[in-house]
């Protein structure tokens, strides 16, 4: 777990200006509360334990979008049930000219993200997934998925999927969502 946190910290550090990152970190720590930044290991173990008991609930999809949502195939990265998407919330970049961990042309990967844990159907291992938004264009509008496994309210910021996770990207305009493997839990 420590390794993963270290890896994630390195990733973020590499992708953001160090001064900006330190400033943000400093502000989070300022009140003696570092919880929003490092709830990952504690909360995730809970989340996985609870999520393992039952399937994630179906959440509503606005009218007209239902037909574009595919379910049922854990190996199809344009389906909501693709294994890495167990907690994805948004339009799949895979349906928008990008991939499961690539932005469509002209959209920028956000250096910040929220995180979840998904079990790979093949090797049975639990992987830590970084849900990184692609930013800089209006919402793609295709393949909306609202999976909520392990998703927490806003006060657990790192585990909230309703936020526009474009912090550090050129604009906060949300385009689509990706799922990037960070490591094995």
């Amino acid at each position: 777990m420590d390794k993963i946190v270290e890896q994630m910290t390195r990733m973020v550090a590499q992708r953001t200006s160090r001064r900006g990152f330190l400033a943000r970190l400093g502000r989070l720590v300022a009140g003696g509360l570092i919880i929003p930044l490092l709830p990952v290991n504690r909360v995730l173990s809970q989340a996985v334990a609870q999520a393992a008991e039952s399937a994630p609930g179906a959440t509503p999809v606005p009218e007209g979008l239902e037909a574009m949502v595919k379910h049922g195939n854990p190996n199809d990265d344009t389906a909501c049930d693709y294994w890495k998407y167990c907690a994805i919330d948004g339009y799949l970049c895979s349906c928008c000219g990008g991939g499961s961990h690539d932005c469509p042309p002209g959209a920028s990967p956000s250096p910040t993200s929220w995180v979840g844990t998904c079990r790979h159907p093949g090797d049975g291992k639990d992987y830590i997934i970084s849900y990184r938004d692609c930013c800089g264009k209006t919402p793609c509008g295709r393949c909306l998925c609202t999976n909520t496994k392990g998703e927490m309210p806003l006060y657990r910021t790192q585990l909230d999927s309703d936020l526009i996770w474009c912090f550090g990207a050129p604009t906060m305009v949300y385009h689509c969502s990706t799922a990037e493997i960070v490591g094995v839990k």
Partner: protein
Amino acid sequence: MHKRLAIAASAILFLFVASGVARAQLRPDQMTSLRLAAPQPHWAYVLDMPNAVPQVTKIYIVDTDRQKMLGQLNGGYLASFVMSPDHREYYMVGTFYSRVWHGTRTDAVEILDASTLNFKGEVVIPPKRLLIVPKNNSAGITPDGRFMLVENLTPATSVSVIDLKARRFVGEIETPGCVQVLVSGPRRFSSMCADGSILTVHLDDSGKAKTRKQSKPFFDPSKDPVFDQPVIAGTDAYFDSYHGMIYKVDLSGDVAKAEPGWSALDDADRKASWRPGGWQTIAESAGGAKIYLLMHQGGEWTHKQDGKEVWVLDTAKKTRISRIPLKTDAYSIRVSSGANPILESLSLVQSQLETYSLPDGKYLGVYHGLGAPFLIYGL
């Protein structure tokens, strides 16, 4: 000659008759902009976040008694809606990029007249407001109408304070590890913190932080998190949790005080997997004497599933009073204020608003075509 006279006479007669007919026709329309009467408790303010282009947020104002659309307000990207306590002004707190999808970011509190719905002015605020699928309590107003409070998340958290009387940004209050603005007094707001505690901030008359005190945690977020959109009745906030626990938190003091939680479910309910879920999942009436929960049957992590029923709970006796089955599954609910409250339920999937009488839960009607409606506001 006679023929000519006859033709002329016929022409005159025709003109006379024609003009007579013209006189009997509809008058030309006089085009104008209508105005709204004073807002009423049964007016629902429905927030539509257009999914494809959330750069413009809409508020539809619907008179639920007459099933009539009264008008629309516009705001910026993922805007929050706030109403002045005297109901004379509306505010849309929004974000704008100079080229819509790129360019320079500006955040502003836009001020709209409640009668004409015209834009009256704005206060530009630091471009760091929380950008999220719209939620309650991301912006709030003090009960005296003086200060507007806007949640910032960069992801460091703070609150922007706007003096609405002076129409200017006053400053920022740091709220590390805590989010949202639960306004409970003229110079007081509270925020929800990551460890399950509440931070209470008292302001002075210039809008600066005077005191800032954090309560003890009143729930364990890693075991059973409370939803982040509590309902506020006066100085009390009512929270519902993923597993159906209810917590009443008194926000009136220097430090928030929580009463012990109690479950909205009995053993049979738990066995049948009932739990709260949706977006705006809790409502109140009679100053918090009754609370209303949007309920569905589902397993773990179904906290955003549409609700099939609304459960009415007595907060003094900590018991359920009734269950109201909904005609259409709902994502958000609200109970209107005033002497004759009604239940309003919103379906995101069906893009519609339904109303039910209280306390009997009788279905009253539906209003269709509300875009992607997430939230209901009201007086």
